[in-house]
């Protein structure tokens, strides 16, 4: 039978290509502690859900003897599948084939699956493991990167885009992950930089290891380029799967609703926040005290941890949380924390996720380093993101809300839909100590016992202004509530915000302080 023979030929061809760079290269990949491209996809996606396309694509390069080289799949695997039933477009660079280097056909496979994801409005996951541009293909490989960046930008805010760095990702290649919503890194495996250690050494004479320059820890703790850090590839895949459950498939949908659950009883919301505004506590306990099953899925846990961002559910619905963290740097706003929260707010806004903000901060961080690092511009990102967002925006002031920090943390003035305050809230221009020193400077300086008068004046100020009732009397706060009532009131606020309409003036787009 002719057909049978042809089927056998297809099977043979498939088998050959599925071996990627061959046994030796696969062995090397394994010895580096890495899985192969197809293994990664299979681990990540639902069982038997993956279908691969463009298996037989070949490169067309002719220079530098490239015409004699066969590169299976041109070093990248593309396809569609599912994660917990959510449809997924995926590509994974295959390091065993020419080091996963990006040539023209390699990039065309990636852009094909990107176009598909955008057209079908489904999430896109990109697994990066590549030595960089395929030098032999010259400007064609640069063109390939450019085509990818353009599509990343086009798809931004329309479909979720997730980048997974499971190997080197260097030079121009880093800009695709940087343009996507969430970047996942794995300890000892991920390496991201614009110029590698060798170039830095020859040009600048500075010696640094790949790990210290752009390893997983660097990007999850220092640069903020990565959003999730894992110890192993398998743990990383679990994190990706969990993230997928919290986000919608595209910007015209809502995230899937899960079965509602009560918070766990051990999170006693009345006992978490100390009375004394100078004492620290972990604000994540407050979040866990109101989320379903007390689960909080934190984003960028290790970077700028003076602000906490992440997802949780209330009555089964995804909520984006933003909260000052008194446990770290007293929860101040600074360059990094403003940057971190602002981007997350824009993410939630783009994907129809209501935002709940918990406020407890002493203000913006003072210091020359902050001023010179542009805390004005970066701090403004937060104001811009909150003001611009049109999803339901709810605020709970837990304790301190001083100065510019009060305004920035989704205040009524930036069009929060509901602002609640706990009875211990202090809404003021600054902390009592600072305020008393300025307002009563003359009395304090002119007295025989300045320390005594200072203390007296601080107390006076505290008694008068360190409470939520001044702000409540002006209507800046809608309701002073008992901590116990927080979850119930937030749920009610979300319920009544379902049909929120807040059309601003018509414009092409604003000019955020990037």
């Amino acid at each position: 039978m002719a057909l049978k023979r042809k089927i056998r030929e297809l099977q043979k061809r498939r088998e050959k290509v599925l071996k990627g760079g061959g046994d030796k290269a696969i062995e090397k990949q394994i010895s580096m502690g890495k899985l192969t491209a197809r293994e990664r996809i299979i681990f990540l996606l639902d069982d038997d859900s993956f279908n691969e396309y463009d298996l037989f694509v070949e490169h067309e390069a002719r220079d530098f003897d490239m015409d004699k080289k066969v590169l299976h799949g041109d070093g990248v695997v593309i396809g569609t599948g599912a994660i917990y039933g959510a449809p997924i477009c995926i590509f994974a660079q295959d390091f065993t084939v020419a080091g996963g280097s990006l040539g023209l056909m390699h990039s065309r496979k990636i852009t094909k699956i990107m176009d598909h994801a955008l057209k079908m409005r489904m999430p896109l996951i990109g697994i990066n493991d590549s030595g960089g541009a395929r030098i032999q293909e010259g400007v064609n490989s640069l063109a390939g990167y450019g085509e990818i960046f353009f599509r990343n930008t086009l798809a931004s805010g329309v479909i979720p885009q997730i980048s997974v760095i499971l190997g080197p990702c260097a030079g121009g290649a880093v800009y695709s992950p940087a343009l996507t919503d969430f970047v996942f890194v794995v300890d000892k495996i991920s390496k991201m930089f614009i110029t590698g250690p060798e170039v830095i050494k020859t040009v600048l004479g500075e010696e640094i290891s790949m790990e210290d320059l752009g390893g997983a820890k660097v990007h999850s703790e220092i640069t903020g380029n990565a959003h999730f850090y894992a110890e192993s590839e398998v743990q990383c895949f679990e994190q990706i799967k969990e993230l997928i459950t919290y986000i919608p498939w595209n910007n015209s949908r809502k995230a899937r609703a899960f079965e509602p659950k009560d918070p766990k009883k051990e999170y006693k919301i009345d006992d978490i926040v100390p009375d004394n505004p100078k004492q620290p506590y972990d604000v994540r306990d407050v979040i866990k005290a109101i989320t379903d099953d007390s689960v909080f899925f934190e984003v960028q846990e290790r970077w700028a941890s003076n602000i906490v961002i992440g997802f949780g559910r209330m009555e089964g619905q995804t909520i984006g949380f933003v909260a000052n963290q008194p446990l770290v740097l007293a929860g101040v706003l600074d360059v990094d924390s403003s940057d971190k929260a602002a981007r997350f707010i824009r993410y939630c806004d783009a994907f129809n996720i209501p935002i709940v903000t918990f406020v407890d901060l002493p203000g913006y961080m003072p210091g020359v380093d902050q001023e010179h690092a542009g805390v004005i511009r970066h701090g403004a990102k937060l104001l811009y993101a909150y003001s611009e967002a049109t999803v339901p925006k709810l605020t709970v002031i837990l304790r301190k809300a001083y100065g510019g920090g009060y305004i920035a943390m989704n205040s009524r003035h930036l069009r929060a839909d509901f602002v609640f305050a706990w009875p211990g809230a202090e809404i003021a221009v600054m902390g009592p100590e600072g305020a008393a020193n300025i307002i009563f400077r003359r009395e304090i300086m002119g007295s025989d016992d300045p320390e005594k008068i200072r203390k007296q004046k601080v107390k006076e100020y505290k008694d008068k202004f360190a409470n939520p009732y001044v702000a409540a009397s002006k209507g800046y706060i809608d309701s002073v509530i008992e901590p116990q009532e927080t979850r119930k009131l937030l749920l009610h606020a979300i319920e009544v915000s379902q049909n929120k309409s807040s059309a601003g003036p018509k414009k092409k787009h604003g000019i955020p302080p990037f």
Partner: protein
Amino acid sequence: MKKWKKKEIESKPKFKTLNIDGTCYKTNLISKFENRKKYTVPDAKKIISVIPGTIMKVFVKEGQKVKRGDNIMILEAMKMQNRIKSPRPGVIKSLKVKEGEKIAKGVLMMELE
């Protein structure tokens, strides 16, 4: 569980103090904050590299008098030969770099008297 935690916070001395607008808060500090560069007033007599690179040529000697704008050295960085000029008139107190030397950013290259 919470009571235990509160107690722990009060009894553990590991928290540091952070002064914001006159109020001292108990909190944890992060390495980025602790390693931040302390600001120092720039000294106009000290000529410091603003970019890492290689000293290609030194035109002056110690003890030499220079006018404002005199060429002092060439610092090659990022494939560009940058001419370093004297920012003010004076006498060269000390030269800290030699021709052919690779230097980092922020290195003291020369001091005027």
